[in-house]
């Protein structure tokens, strides 16, 4: 009887198309908006991936990785002296202004790495040599910087080319790949000593201290010990990641805004699927009554309705997520808007779509259970 159920569903082309369309739209809206939301959240934590370190030591008031408060340079030594710390090095990180050939200005994220260890170096170098960063006025720029800072040039910024940071000449010795930052600024890496030359002079120039735990210590244990002995704030990577994410949840309208759209997707799905499926059942009442009269039990009819609802659910889900993937492929090529599609997201969308369809089927099932087979004898 299940093929009969499917033919009854597909045969009503108008409602079939409306159900598929509604569920596709709901799946697309929920998955695509969630993927953009997750992508945006990942952008907020790009420092963690572009300057990898096991322990991040910052000013006690710092809550997230994009709002670093300058520390005293002596704090590096204080961290090094903590039990449970293997080594610790200074790092500079701030937004500076670069000047383009055509006279325009672009903000860049200037990262100053420890000149000896180069801890926090970019994970993937596309061109040049990392060691050359130690040469005077040398920088490694990310691929976004190549696009952004090449405006007005005859060819894209490349190895050996120069540009200005705060009116000081910087020579490109390497090009790297970096995750996009929340503010959309390109990453420019140099050594700590050169970074504080590029940056305007202020009283405190140390942005943070990155450290490694001593043997036998976990990053979290080491971070707690640093906090205890120095009064500074210390995070392992995971702690700083979540601290940053929650900061954006608490302090921005981003989750509420995306949450509203995702909720709308859910409501649209429930409304369209529920209403259309219920109408489908109502319009098929006489046919279902005839099946009931001929001996189809409530259980069989309920299973047929669930099969119909889940079938449109799976198709709508597949089309919605498929469109999301196409959207993702298009935007990943361009680099924005943000997009991240972890496997949990399509899985969650599938569960939600199936819940919507089960709800729609339940509305029909309730009607079927109350339906008297004798309805077929009424005019």
């Amino acid at each position, binding site marked *: *009887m299940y093929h*009969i159920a499917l*033919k009854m569903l597909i045969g009503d082309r108008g409602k079939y198309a409306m159900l598929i369309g509604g569920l596709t739209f709901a799946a697309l809206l929920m998955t695509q908006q969630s993927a953009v939301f997750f992508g945006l959240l990942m952008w907020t934590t790009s420092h963690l991936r572009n300057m990898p370190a096991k322990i991040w030591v910052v000013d006690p008031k710092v809550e997230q990785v994009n709002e670093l408060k300058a520390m005293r340079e002596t704090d590096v030594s204080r961290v090094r002296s903590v039990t449970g710390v293997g080594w610790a090095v200074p790092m500079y990180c701030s937004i500076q202004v670069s000047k383009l050939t055509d006279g325009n200005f672009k903000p860049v994220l200037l990262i100053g790495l420890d000149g000896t260890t180069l801890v926090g170096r970019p994970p993937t170098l596309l061109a040049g040599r990392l060691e050359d960063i130690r040469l005077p006025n040398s920088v490694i720029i990310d691929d976004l910087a190549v696009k952004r800072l090449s405006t007005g040039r005859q060819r894209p910024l490349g190895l050996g080319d120069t540009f200005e940071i705060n009116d000081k000449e910087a020579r490109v010795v390497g090009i790297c790949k970096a995750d996009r930052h929340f503010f959309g600024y390109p990453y420019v890496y140099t050594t700590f000593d050169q970074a504080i030359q590029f940056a305007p002079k202020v009283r405190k120039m140390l942005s943070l201290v990155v450290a490694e735990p001593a043997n036998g210590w976990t990053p979290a244990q080491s971070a707690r010990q640093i906090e205890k002995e120095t009064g500074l704030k210390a995070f392992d990577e995971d702690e700083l990641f979540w601290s940053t994410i929650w900061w954006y949840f608490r302090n921005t309208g981003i989750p509420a805004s995306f949450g509203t759209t995702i909720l709308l997707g859910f409501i649209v799905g429930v409304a369209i699927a529920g209403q259309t499926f219920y109408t489908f059942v109502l319009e098929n009442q006489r046919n279902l009554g*005839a099946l009931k009269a*001929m001996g189809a039990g409530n259980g069989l009819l309920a299973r047929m309705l669930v099969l119909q609802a889940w079938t449109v659910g799976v198709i709508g889900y597949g089309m919605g997520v498929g469109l999301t993937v196409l959207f993702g492929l298009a935007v990943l090529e361009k680099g924005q808007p943000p997009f991240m599609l972890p496997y949990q997201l399509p899985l969650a969308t599938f569960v939600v779509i199936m819940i919507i369809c089960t709800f729609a089927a339940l509305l029909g099932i309730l009607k079927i259970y109350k339906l008297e*087979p*004798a309805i*077929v*004898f*009424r005019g």
Partner: protein
Amino acid sequence: MAEGNSNSLAVHVRAVSKTYGRGDTQIRALDGVDFDARLGELLMIVGPSGSGKTTLLSVIAGTLEFDAGEIEVFGASLHRLRPREVTAFRKRHVGFIFQQFNLIPTLNLIENVSVPLLLNGESRRVAERKAQTLLDSLGLQGRGREAPTNLSGGQQQRVAIARALVHEPQLVICDEPTSALDKDTGAHIMELLRTVARKPDRCVVVVTHDSRIFHYADRMTEMEDGRVQRVHELPAHYEQAGDH
């Protein structure tokens, strides 16, 4: 009103009552009805609108619960069966022909006819083969893959008859089977039903207003106000019907 010995009875109804609604809006559709239908006969239930004939048909078919009384259909006591058992009984032993045919428009003819077999656990392949054979025998050769909407009323009713008979039920229930058809088509349909009823282990019960087909009945039960008023044997009634 009981007639014939119980061995020859297909349907045996005693003191059956059925009431719709409550209080002031209460309607007593069946009021202690006694009714029998014999094996191998085509029995018609006639009467004015609201006389209770469709309700009687519904309770005999097991599609409607009744308030009091006893109903035996081919030896099964419907009043003693649980709803699930009544459904199973209907599935196996009852075939339905409806006034508006009630063919599922999104299924083709073969699929429509195969439904009772599928409900009885037959495989799809076997069910569709049997359905095709029966459709062929009813003059619908080569049209099995068509949609019911492509057919005339008479052809649709033949499909409905095929669906009612495909699983070889003992009791065939017909609700106004000719009211939506012209005279000739209606006559053809009634010939078919009379042929079905002639089999000794079968019984066809027809509810109708259509006086053009009264003469096809072996017996006729007249209802009024929820009660059986008279039962006519064919020869006597046939002449009266001819006078209409």
